[in-house]
């Protein structure tokens, strides 16, 4: 019985085709529904799918979102010290979270958004606004919650274990109205402690730093992963990382 190369290829075992399939990528063929396959697979695997939202709910959610965006402007101005483009956390207080002092003039519930920098496989970056709902009396969000979307989007098994603020810089004495006043620099370094099993490459780490930078006011960001200080591009600056240019 004669065999064609097609037949030989069909009979190939996993280890034999491994190298051959390197760098071979394919788009979805025309006319095939990704959604159908996903639904069928989840059903076969016995994984319950979240109930699909009706149009009314979807549009309702959209309208609510728009309302939240509108309401977010005064919040943003407050967070950003009346700077409408800067909505970053000033990092004040809290053992487990970041607390905000919100002026009573802000309408609740409201939302704030931060720019997340998601690393893409081709080395580029996807910048995406993520919204967080703020309710009166519950003005606390932890770094774990804030960075969960980042790791979830990248499908990385990493979580925030802890964080701390520290200060670099010295106290200075200046003369104000004939009197010497001591100026103590505010917290300017944020150290985040991560735990997980995923390997974090330089591109992902740069995106992570930029995401943290878009959320936080601090000047320097230090990362500690599984107890080890993180280096990016082989460097681990003592004062911490600053924003990376994309």
């Amino acid at each position: 019985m004669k065999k064609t190369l097609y037949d030989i290829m069909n009979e190939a075992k996993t280890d034999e085709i491994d190298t051959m399939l390197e760098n071979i990528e394919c788009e979805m063929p025309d006319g095939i529904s990704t959604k159908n396959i996903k639904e069928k697979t989840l059903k076969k695997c016995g994984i319950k799918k979240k109930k699909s939202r009706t149009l009314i709910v979807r549009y309702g959610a959209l309208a609510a979102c728009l309302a939240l965006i509108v309401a977010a402007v005064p919040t943003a101005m407050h967070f950003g010290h009346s700077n409408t483009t800067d909505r970053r956390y000033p990092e004040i207080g809290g053992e487990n979270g970041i607390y905000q002092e919100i002026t009573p003039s802000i309408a609740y519930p409201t939302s704030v958004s931060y720019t997340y920098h998601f690393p893409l496989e081709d080395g580029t970056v996807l910048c995406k606004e993520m919204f967080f709902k703020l309710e009166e009396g519950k003005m606390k969000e932890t770094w774990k919650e804030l960075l969960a979307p980042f790791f979830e989007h990248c499908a990385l098994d990493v979580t925030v274990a802890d964080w701390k603020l520290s200060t670099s810089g010295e106290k200075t004495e200046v003369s104000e109205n004939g009197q010497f006043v001591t100026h103590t620099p505010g917290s300017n370094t944020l150290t985040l402690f991560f735990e997980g099993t995923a390997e974090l490459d330089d591109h992902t780490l740069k995106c992570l730093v930029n995401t943290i930078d878009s959320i936080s006011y601090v000047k320097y960001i230090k990362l500690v992963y599984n107890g080890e200080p993180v280096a990016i591009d082989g460097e681990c600056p003592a004062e911490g990382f600053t924003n990376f240019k994309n």
Partner: protein
Amino acid sequence: MKDDVLLKLLRKHPDKGLSALMERYMGLICTVIKGCFSPYTCFSAEDIEECASDVFYEFYKSMENFRPEQGSIKSYLCAIAKHKTIDVIRKRAFENTLISLDSDEEFLQIAGDFTVEAELLLAEERKALFAEINALGEPDREIIVRKFYLREPTQAIAERLGLSAGNVDVRTHRALAKLREKIGGKI
């Protein structure tokens, strides 16, 4: 995402893991299935979707048997896809609804270029053949894999690689001749 991370995600959050798995490999798996079904008239888009979902389900079911040292998830899924499609084709043949689109001439032309005695083609020889394919260099290696493993049409390969269809055909012919020469009298 690396395979070990994907496996951990599948174990920890099956829904997220499956979504990530499908997001990453659905295009490749559907192309493999479509390629295997392409010589026959009776397979619809729904058949491809059904078969693709079977492949991911099969992987999910037999995830614990997956051995990373034997290959990647990518090749493991492709192997499952090949077996699944062969099962479906056999089933249809049994139901007498299978009609091949391949004209004998076209199919035998390739077979005539590159045939083997099944008895002589042992696993070692097959490995040697694949090693030679890998040693062809680009873009010839990719052309051979896309044409004979994924069964993509010449035009589609040409568009993807930025070559003309004629160039793809010439490169295929030369690559096959080179392989035949390397493998010697066995093919």
